[in-house]
């Protein structure tokens, strides 16, 4: 297919048999790391979109519940008067208890706990609301009200995701470097192993590039072979993780399935790795031959 007829018995040395498996492993890791990056990217973007443009107003419970109701009404009135707000919704006690259930359990006593009142607020899209001003206006009329625009939480989350993404990208770089290192090593060993035949080719008048082309096409073939194996190992793993994530149905995890663009980026990895292997082999041969002969 790619390999032209080889003048060197490159496919007979043990290194040629071990290289595809090593590359398969590299590609497997690379696919996982890259899938991680792609998913995190999607997640970060969706969280960002989903959370920005919303506020939560929290009214800390006072001594008696009647007071609380009056304070809630004042807050709602202020919200109604704010033009940037699209819509708001008071979270009922039922919903609140459901949210707290993991921590409080379903015991009857929980109902008697003083619960804060929460109001979910959705801003008009594109509206620029001065949160601090709103917060001051509310505090002036209703003490004990706080507004959370999720920005701290979101910033931290996004920072966390970016860090993990950075690490995953670093993993990709390491994989590329290991691939290069492995190919340099196997190519050098191959050159030493076939030194006699290479010398003969050389005396007959072969350019270095003629010899290099044989190593390069071999590396490309082995790289593609390994890459495809690695990809085939990685795909079921990714699908498995996707299924597990889907089963969680958690509000915390947005839909993390990979799109067509993502899949084709992942499918491109074996090709990239094979090209890296080919180029590395070529450069190694050219450099080594210039020193060797």
């Amino acid at each position, binding site marked *: 297919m790619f390999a032209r*007829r080889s*003048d060197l*018995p490159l496919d*007979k040395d043990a290194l040629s048999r071990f290289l595809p498996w090593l590359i398969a492993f590299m590609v497997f890791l690379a696919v996982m790391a890259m899938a991680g990056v792609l998913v995190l990217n999607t997640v970060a973007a969706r969280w960002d979109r989903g959370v920005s443009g919303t506020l939560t107003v929290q009214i800390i419970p006072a001594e008696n519940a009647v007071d609380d109701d009056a304070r809630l009404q004042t807050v709602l009135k202020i919200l109604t008067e704010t033009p940037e707000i699209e819509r708001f919704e008071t979270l009922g006690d039922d919903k609140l208890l459901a949210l707290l259930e993991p921590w409080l359990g379903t015991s009857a006593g929980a109902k008697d706990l003083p619960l804060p009142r929460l109001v979910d607020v959705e801003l008009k899209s594109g509206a620029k609301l001065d949160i601090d001003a709103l917060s001051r206006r509310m505090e002036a009329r209703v003490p004990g009200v706080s507004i959370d625009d999720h920005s701290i939480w979101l910033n931290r989350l996004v920072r966390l995701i970016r860090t993990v993404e950075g690490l995953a990208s670093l993993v990709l770089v390491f994989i590329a470097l290991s691939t290069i290192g492995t190919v340099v090593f196997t190519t050098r060993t191959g050159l030493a192993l076939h030194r*006699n*035949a290479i*010398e*003969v*080719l*050389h*005396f*007959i*008048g*072969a*350019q270095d590039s*003629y010899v290099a082309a044989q190593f390069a096409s071999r590396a490309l073939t082995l790289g593609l072979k390994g890459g495809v194996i690695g990809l085939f190992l990685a795909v079921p793993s990714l699908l498995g993780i996707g299924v597990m994530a889907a089963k969680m149905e958690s509000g915390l995890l947005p839909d993390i399935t990979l799109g067509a663009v993502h899949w084709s980026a992942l499918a491109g990895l074996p090709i990239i790795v094979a090209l890296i292997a080919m180029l590395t082999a070529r450069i190694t041969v050219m450099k080594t031959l*210039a020193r060797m002969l």
Partner: protein
Amino acid sequence: MTIDENEAIVKFENVGLRYGLGPEVLQDVTFSLAPGSFHFLVGPSGAGKSSLLKLIYLALKPSRGLISLFGRDIATTSRRDLPPIRRRVGVVFQEFRLLNHLSAFDNVALPLRIAGAKKSEIQKHVVELLSWVGLKDHLDARPPTLSGGQQQRVSIARAVIARPKILLADEPTGNVDDPMGMRLMHLFEELNKLGTTVIIATHNNMMVEKMGYPKMHLDEGWLEMVGDGSMSAPAPRQTDFEGLI
């Protein structure tokens, strides 16, 4: 690169060669060969015959002195420009140096492939030449399955397939009996008649005396030209291998 009829095809001036820090195995070697000449390179074992040939086929660099091939100073020729020069020099190595994983056909085809010849041409010429050296039935045989004499003929075929301007043969009759040795010598003579400059290293004195070509005599690294050292060439003829059969 055109070859001037009168210009030396191989020229050595005060060439010395030492391996590592050892003694000089060639000392002040000076000679020039006219295109189309035929020489025997003689001398006792260890005299430096193989070393001298290695200098000509650019497997070694001299420790001192000047070597030029086809009028080009090798020392000042860049690495990139050496392969085209090497293609004009055919070598029959003392130890054959066939590629054992390739068939006889592919071994002989190698110089043509390296030179970028067309597939159909390679097929035609290689089969023709291997038939001519009596290996028509062994095209697909790997060298290890061939006898010493057969391997020798494959290596000779490989050396001449691309019609080199210079043919170097290092003890090419060392592995065969005298009748076969004479047949191979006649093959070299035929090539020489087609214009190839030939140097044959041998210590088979009987053959050397019988054929009567000029000698390059090496002893302990010193070279002496015996006979007409600049025998001039018959005009090179453009002939196909069929002409040789």
